[in-house]
C-alpha cells in the first residue's frame, strides 16, 4: 500500500516535470518565432506568437494547480519539496518569458508596418543567446546538472553587454534623425525584453543549482572572486 502511494506520488511529480518541460519547449519556440517574425518581417508569425502566449498562461495555471495539489495532499519533504517549490518558481519565470515574447511580437507587428530602421544584427544574436540560456537552464533541469546551470549565469553577462551596446547605437540614430525615435524606442524595448528573458533563464538556472546541491546562490556573483 505504501509503495502504491509512493508510486502514485512519483507519477504526479513526473507529470509536473513533463508539463513544465513542455511549457519550456513552447517558450523556447516563442523566443525563436518572435525574433523570426521581426527579422523576416513576418506579421502572420507575430500574430501566432502573440496567440500562443494564451497557451503558456493556461499551462502556468495548470502546473500551479498541480503543484499546490501535491503540496496539500502529499506534504512532500526534502528533495521532493525542493522540486515542487522549484517547479512553482520556474513556471512563473517561464510565463514571464512568454509574456515578453508576446510583447516582442507586438512590437515586431508595429515595426513591420514601417520601413526597417537598420539591419537587425545584434537583436538576433541576443535572441539566440537568450534562447540558448533558456535551453541550457532547462537542459540542466532535465539532467540535474548544476555545472551547465552555472554556465547559464555567465551567458547572461553577454546579453547584458549586447543590450547596452545596442542602446548606445540607437541613441545616435535618434539624435541624428528625430523621425526614427518611434522605431528606435520599439527596438530598444525588444532589446530590454531579450535582456530580461536571459535574466529569467538565469533565475531558472540558479534554482536548478538549489535543487541539485541544496545551495542557494541567488544574489551572489556569477564568477568566483
Amino acid at each position, binding site marked *: 500500500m505504501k509503495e502504491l502511494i509512493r508510486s502514485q506520488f512519483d507519477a504526479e511529480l513526473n507529470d509536473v516535470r*513533463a508539463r513544465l518541460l*513542455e511549457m*519550456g*519547449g513552447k517558450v523556447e519556440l516563442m523566443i525563436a518565432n518572435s525574433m523570426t517574425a521581426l527579422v523576416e518581417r513576418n506579421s502572420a508569425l507575430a500574430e501566432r506568437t502573440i496567440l500562443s502566449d494564451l497557451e503558456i498562461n493556461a499551462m502556468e495555471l495548470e502546473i500551479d494547480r498541480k503543484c499546490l495539489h501535491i503540496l496539500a495532499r502529499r506534504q512532500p519533504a526534502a528533495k521532493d519539496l525542493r522540486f515542487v517549490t522549484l517547479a512553482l518558481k520556474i513556471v512563473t519565470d517561464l510565463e514571464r518569458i512568454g509574456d515578453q515574447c508576446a510583447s516582442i511580437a507586438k512590437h515586431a507587428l508595429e515595426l513591420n508596418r514601417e520601413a526597417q530602421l537598420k539591419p537587425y544584427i545584434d537583436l538576433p544574436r541576443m535572441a539566440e543567446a537568450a534562447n*540558448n540560456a533558456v535551453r541550457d537552464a532547462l537542459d540542466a533541469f*532535465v539532467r540535474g546538472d548544476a555545472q551547465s546551470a552555472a554556465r547559464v549565469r555567465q551567458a547572461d553577462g553577454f546579453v547584458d553587454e549586447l543590450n547596452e551596446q545596442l542602446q548606445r547605437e540607437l541613441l545616435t540614430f535618434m539624435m541624428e534623425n528625430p523621425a526614427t525615435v518611434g522605431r528606435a524606442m520599439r527596438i530598444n524595448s525588444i532589446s530590454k525584453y531579450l535582456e530580461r528573458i536571459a535574466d529569467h533563464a538565469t533565475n531558472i538556472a540558479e534554482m536548478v543549482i538549489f535543487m541539485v546541491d541544496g545551495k542557494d546562490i541567488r544574489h551572489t556573483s556569477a564568477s568566483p572572486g
Partner: protein
Amino acid sequence: MKLRVMAAQLLIVLLLGMVIYGYLDRTLERYQSTEVTEHLTNDAGLARTVAAREIRDLRRDAPALAAAIGREIKARVTIIAGNGEVVGDSELTPRELASLDNHAGRPEVRAALAKGRGSSVRYSETLRTDMLYVAVPFRPATGDNAVLRLALPLSSLEAAKRDFHLVLGGTLSLAALLLVLLSLLLTRVSARSLHAVAAIASRIGQGELGTRVPVEKGSEVGELARVLNDMALRTEEQLGRISAEKNRLDTILRGMGEGIMVADPHGVITLVNPAFKGLFAIQDEVEGKQLIDISRHPALHDSFRDVIAQRQERVEELLLRSPKEKTVLTHWVPLLENGALQGVVAVFHDISDIRQLEKMRRDFVANVSHELRTPVTVIKGYAETLLAGVLEDNPDQAARFVGIIFAHADRLGSLIGDLLTLSQLESGTLVMESRSVRLYDVAEQVRALLEQKALERRVTIDVAGLSDAPAVIADPGRLEQVFLNLMDNAIKYTPAGGSVTLSAEAEGDQVRIVVKDTGTGIPPSDLPRIFERFYRVDSARSREEGGTGLGLAIVKHVVQMMGGSVGAESSGKGSSFYVTLKRG
C-alpha cells in the same frame, strides 16, 4: 523423499518380520509340546509295562522302581495308588512321601483312571516350576489299579524356546539392518546422479546452453538426461534464430539514414537508432527516458499526443533549431496489437538538403528571370524613347542611346551564352577533349585577351610562374574559359596598383593552379557559396562590372567535368582561387 522411501521399506520389513516371527513361534511351540507329550506318553506306556510286571506289592516296590525308571528316562516318575496316595516318587525319599497330599484330585490322575491316559501342564508346588504331567493307569500283580505318572519340567522346553527366539529375532533384526543399509546405499547412488542432472539443468537455465548431460544408458536418470539434452538443444537453436533475427534488425536500424524512435503510450522511449541520436545531438542512453527529456520541441509532443489519441498515422514537417537548423519529415505510426495501443513508432527523415536544393532551384528561376528582365527593360525603354522621336530630333543623343542598347544586348547575349553553357555542362551533352595542355600557353593567350582591361585598371598580370609548370590533361578551349573567368574576376576586384599572379605546382599526379590577387577579398561567410549560380558577394558592384553571376559556376562545372576540383581561400589582403587538374 529419500527418508520417506526408506521408512516405508523399513516398516514393511518389520511387519513381515513380526508376522513370520509370530507364526514360527506359534507352530514351533505347538510342535514342541506335542512332541514332548507324545514322547512322555510313550515312556509312560513303557514304564507302565515294566511297573505292571515288577511291582508285587505297591507300597514296597514302588519307590525303588520309580527311582530306577526315573534314572533311565530322565523324568520324574510318580506312582500313585488307586486311592490317590503317592506310593513312590523318583525324586522324593519314602519319608518325604508321607507328607504329600492325596493326588486323586490331580487332573491327569483322574483322566488316567477314567480314560486310560491323562496329561496336564501345571505349576508344581513341590518342584516350584511348570511341569508337564502324563499319567497312565496300570494294574500291579497284586492289588488295585494304580497310576504311573511321568513329569517333565518345562524349563528345558523354555530354554529351547528362548534360544529359538534369540536366533529368530537376531536374524530378523539383521535382515532389517541390512535392508536399511542397502536402501541407503541405493538411494545415495541414484540421488547422486539426480543431483548431477539437476546441476547441469540449472546451468542450462542460466544460459550455458551448450552444456549437455552425460547420458547413462538404461537408467531412469539416463532417460531424463536425454530429454533434458533435447530440450537444451532446441532452446539453443531457437535462441540462435532469435538472436540472429535481432542482429539483423539491429544492423538495419543502425545502417538506416532515417532516425527511428519507438515509445510506449506514456511517452517512455523504448528504442532509438544512431541516426535519431545524431539528429537530436544526444550522447547519453535514451532508452527508458521520457520523450520530453530528449526534446522539448512542442510540435513533437503535439504529434505524439495526437497519434496516441487518434491512433492514426501522421506525417509532419518539423523544424529543428538546435543543434543545427534542420527540416525533418516525421512519420508517426501507432503500434496496434489486437486493437490495443502498444506505443508509437516515429521515423525522422532529414530533408534539409532536399529543401535547400528546392530553394536553390526556386532562387535560380527567380534569379534568371530577374537577370534577363533588367537588360530587356533597359533596351525596351531606350528603344521606346528613340521611337518617340529622339531618333530624328537629336541624333547625338540617339547614338548614345543605341550604344546603351548595344551594351545591354551584349550583356543579354553573354548571359544567355553562359546559361546555355551551364545547361550543356549540366546535361552532359558537351563533348570534352582531353589531351595534354601546356598551362603557360593557355594563360598567355588569356593574358593577351585581358591585357587592355588590365592596363585600364592599372593591374599587372603575372603568368611567368607557369612557364615551367607541368602539363595537364584538359580541353584547351574549356581551360581557356576557366582561366578567362578566374583572371577576369581577379582583375575586376583588384584595386589600381594591384596584381594578379598565376602559379602552379605538382601534387602527386595532380597539378594545383593558383590564381592569386591582391584585391578586396571575400568575407568568410560567403566563401562556401561563391561557386553557386547567381551568388554575388556584392550584387550591385557585380552588375556594374558586367558580370552575369554565372562565371564561377561555369568554372566549377568545367573543372569538375575535366576530373578536377576548384576552391577558394581569402584573407583581408586578397583571394586565391585554385584549380586542381590531372597531370598530363
